[in-house]
């Protein structure tokens, strides 16, 4: 029962291949198999580290590191940023999540390369232009950034990790994510269909 969708790279910006890959794009794995693998990675993290996965936390560390480089007093004075600075003895980038996210980039690249799916481009539906897509990508990202901070995590950290741990707040979060996405889907359907 393999999923049959292939990557669709549409748009003028995606003409040239990012990598000189001769291998054609291969179909995705069965979602249950991929999910099982993902679950094992998550379990390994619990067993080895006593913590789960995450993503948005690493981005916060990045933002704080950048802010600290540009305006250190302002950063330290801000209660939210200061938490990522700790006592100042080490950079906010020396953080578990930052290293994990770098790993995610590498892992994604490995899988994509093996499957011939690394190709520069913009993923969008046929009914919308590249510029509009990028505009929505940025705006959606902004809303997500705020949402992730309010919720203390994103789908990786809260939904996957907290979900497996039966964390009450994480399950509430997960349901809210689905609710919000389904509610909004109608209004942006032109992007995708």
């Amino acid at each position, binding site marked *: 029962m393999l999923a049959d969708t292939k990557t669709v790279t549409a748009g003028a910006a995606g003409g040239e291949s990012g990598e000189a890959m001769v291998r054609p794009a291969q179909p995705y794995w069965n979602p*249950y198999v991929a999910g099982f693998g993902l679950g094992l990675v998550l379990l390994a993290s619990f067993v080895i580290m006593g913590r789960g996965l995450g993503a948005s936390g690493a981005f916060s560390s990045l933002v704080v590191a950048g802010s600290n480089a540009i305006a250190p007093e302002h950063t330290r004075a801000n209660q939210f940023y200061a938490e*990522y600075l700790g*006592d100042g003895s080490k950079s906010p980038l020396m953080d*578990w999540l930052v290293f994990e996210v770098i790993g995610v980039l590498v892992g994604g690249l490995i899988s994509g390369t093996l499957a011939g799916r690394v190709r520069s481009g913009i993923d969008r539906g046929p009914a919308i232009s590249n510029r509009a897509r990028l505009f929505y990508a940025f705006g959606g990202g902004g809303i997500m950034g705020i949402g992730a901070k309010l919720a203390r995590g994103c789908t990786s*950290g809260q939904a996957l990790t907290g979900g497996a741990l039966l964390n009450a707040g994480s399950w509430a979060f997960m349901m809210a994510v689905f609710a919000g996405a389904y509610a909004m889907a109608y209004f942006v359907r032109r992007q995708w269909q």
Partner: protein
Amino acid sequence: MTRLKTTHYAAILLGVLGLFAAFAGSPYQGTQYTIDAKELARVVEGEVDHVNPETLADWIIQGKSDFRVIDLRTEAEFAGYHIPGAENAALTALPEYGLTKSETIVLYSEGGIHSAQAWFLLKAKGYRGVYMLRGGLEEWKDRVLFPTLAANPTPAQTVEFAKMKEVSKFFGGTPQTGAAGDQQPTVEPAMPKLEMPQSALAPAGAQKKKKKEGC
């Protein structure tokens, strides 16, 4: 008779695992609260579990960073004065506080009772690096902040006192001259910010990175 597909096998397996889990009991079996009485007795007798105030003072002056100091008193008492670099935690909150089982942890309270109780609690949970500050804050004040020199000091005591004078000044204390017990310290040093030569402490005690395990 219909043949079962892989998906059906998987669903049955999951159902069995779930059903078993429903009757299996608690998944917290790995959380041991066992106490090895003999080992405990040996440790208590040998006072292996104590740290002297002078030793702790030394660690702080040298800027050692591989240990944590936990103050078990109330927030108000902590705000009044605390040992530089200490973190405030209630005894009840300790198990969830975020201590790893291998790091060096020095517990203190006003005297010794609460730190002993906390030591016991953590030791029972398998924490290997817990220590109590001998004499608690009382002895810290007596020996580090306000060291006294005996009336007829031996040469060794004089040397010791000279060293403790420097240490006490480092922590903002006042060495006491005159017979021990003569003077009562009248002023408690206020403690929000203390300039430490080596380690840069953030105001209100060193704030370890709180986002250690969030996502």
